[in-house]
């Protein structure tokens, strides 16, 4: 199996080994070792939560730089719908499209347009009687990876249609190659302007093993700061936007669902909420739904780790921007879903949860984990470097850490030692230490 390429990196110098990301990682992929965070790449789903919460800005999204525009003769920008919500005081998307042209792109293909095509294909797909319901959207790569990792039974529910970014990229590439037949195809660069890390990983790894058509992936934040000044100077845009309400609606939660024109849907966001929904669907606890839209980021794609604006403010701006747009100007010509937009199989990979390949060894290890967990304080403080006492017990049994790392137990042991030796108490020891270091505070009353 090819190793999965991730898009979250750590600046070891900036990381102070605090437990903020440790506690927020939805897959318990992070440990603090040697005073800094380490990410277990088998478990990481590239959700970007750790980037969003890091107080020291040590976690970073991996993406290409704007300098990479120079790598190609023909440069095509694919802005994600969430991009339009980043700008303040804009009443027309045309200026944003114009801004991208003036920045140096030769063509702009809106992902929102491709999203409208995917919405149309989704409606066709939902008409089929032979598909497992509820159908789960394939748009958020964090969710599809989560399903592959923890909900194998739900794999067949994921819609086997390429997500909008890939549809946009393949349409863009086809048109460019037709327009420039004499140009070496390698000289056509397709740049996706991404709101999140997960889509970066998606591009690096390919969706379900299919070759993807995206050449470079830019951070929405980088592009925003570059074109914000350009946009302010635009009076009369030469280019116009071509997406409608449905396409732009994909930027926030519920947009994709509302485009299926069917009330039997569920739309959720925030990775923890999504996991809970998946658990309940997996238990067949909630039936009768046709479609499920899950977005790992709060608010939907507008909440991605590479966006600038507050997700809810971005959503409010989008509501205003799409008010006077047509519903869906991008409709597929075909009445059935083109074969090339189907994916045959979803990616399977080893999530690294397995204790041992041998059942008996795994059972023995699990017994040890249960026994150790019962002895641990249960505070889930994270000081040992693991997110929970249970995870710490697992790490001990797997020989990845030592039981001495539990600071709560160490403190108790130290206290017992002092009491048993009757030499001193912990407070005496502390006072001695402060005296010696000349830090004794004056007592208020004697």
């Amino acid at each position, binding site marked *: 199996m090819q190793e999965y390429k991730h898009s979250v990196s750590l600046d070891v110098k900036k990381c102070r080994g605090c437990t903020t990301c440790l506690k927020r990682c939805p897959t318990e992929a992070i440990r603090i070792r040697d005073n800094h965070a380490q990410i277990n790449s088998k478990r990481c789903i590239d959700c970007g939560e750790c980037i969003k919460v890091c107080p020291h800005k040590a976690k970073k999204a991996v993406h290409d730089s704007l300098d990479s525009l120079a790598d190609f003769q023909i440069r095509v920008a694919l802005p994600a719908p969430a991009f339009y919500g980043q700008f303040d005081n804009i009443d027309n998307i045309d200026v944003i499209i114009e801004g991208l042209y003036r920045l140096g792109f030769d063509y702009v293909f809106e992902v929102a347009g491709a999203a409208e095509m995917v919405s149309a294909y989704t409606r066709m797909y939902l008409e089929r009687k032979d598909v497992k319901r509820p159908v789960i959207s394939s748009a958020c790569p964090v969710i599809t990876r989560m399903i592959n990792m923890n909900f194998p039974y739900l794999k067949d529910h994921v819609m086997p249609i390429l997500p909008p970014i890939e549809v946009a990229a393949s349409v863009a590439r086809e048109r460019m190659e037709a327009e420039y037949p004499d140009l070496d195809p390698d000289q056509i660069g397709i740049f996706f302007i991404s709101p999140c890390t997960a889509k970066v990983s998606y591009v690096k790894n390919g969706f379900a093993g299919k070759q993807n058509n995206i050449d470079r992936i830019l951070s929405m934040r980088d592009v925003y700061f570059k074109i914000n000044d350009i946009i302010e100077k635009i009076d009369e845009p030469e280019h116009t936007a071509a997406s409608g309400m449905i396409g732009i609606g994909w930027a926030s939660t519920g947009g994709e669902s509302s485009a299926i024109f069917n009330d039997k849907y569920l739309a959720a966001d925030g990775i923890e909420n999504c996991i809970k929904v998946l658990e309940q669907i997996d*238990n067949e606890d909630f039936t009768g739904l046709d479609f499920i839209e899950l977005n790992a980021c709060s608010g939907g794609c507008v909440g991605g780790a590479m966006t600038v604006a507050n997700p809810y403010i971005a959503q409010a701006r989008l509501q205003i921007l799409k008010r006077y747009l047509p519903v869906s100007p991008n409709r597929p010509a075909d009445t059935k879903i083109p074969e090339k937009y189907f994916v045959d199989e979803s990616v399977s990979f080893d999530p690294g949860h397995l204790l041992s390949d041998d059942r008996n060894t795994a059972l023995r290890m699990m017994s040890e984990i249960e026994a150790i967990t019962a002895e641990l304080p249960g505070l889930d403080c994270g000081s040992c470097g693991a997110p929970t006492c249970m995870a710490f017990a697992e790490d001990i049994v797997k020989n990845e850490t030592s039981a001495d790392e539990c600071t709560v137990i160490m403190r108790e042991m130290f206290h017992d030692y002092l009491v048993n030796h009757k030499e001193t108490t912990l407070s005496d020891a502390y006072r001695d230490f402060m005296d010696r270091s000349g830090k004794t505070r004056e007592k208020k009353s004697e």
Partner: protein
Amino acid sequence: MAENVVFHFDIDGEDFSSAGGASVTVKKKLRQLGIDSEQIRRVAIAMYEGEINMVIHASGGTADVIVSDHEITIVLADHGPGIPDVSLAMQEGYSTARDHIRSLGFGAGMGLPNMKKYTDSMKIETELGRGTTITMTVNIT
């Protein structure tokens, strides 16, 4: 022959928001043990239904999951009112849950039938006014 692993849970009554939590934990642990995903799912559903039943009808109880090298045993025990007519309770759609429970989406009368459907064996011991103990097994490969 390896030792069995036992997971014990106290199921809190009256708390629908956390009902099903034990089955989620068990699912995670069974994954770590490398149990087949279809078998995990059957255990999780049977256990989830049982948990919900204990919350709706018996103000909670206990759940024990015993994993051996060939089967998973789920023992759900409560001190609730007992089941007056087990064969009636086993019918799909039969429910004694009150309206406010049904309005939450529970009490559809599929609990016990689902538990039977998803497990390889199921035994119900019940005594009116004393409580109910349900023992289910799922064979593992």
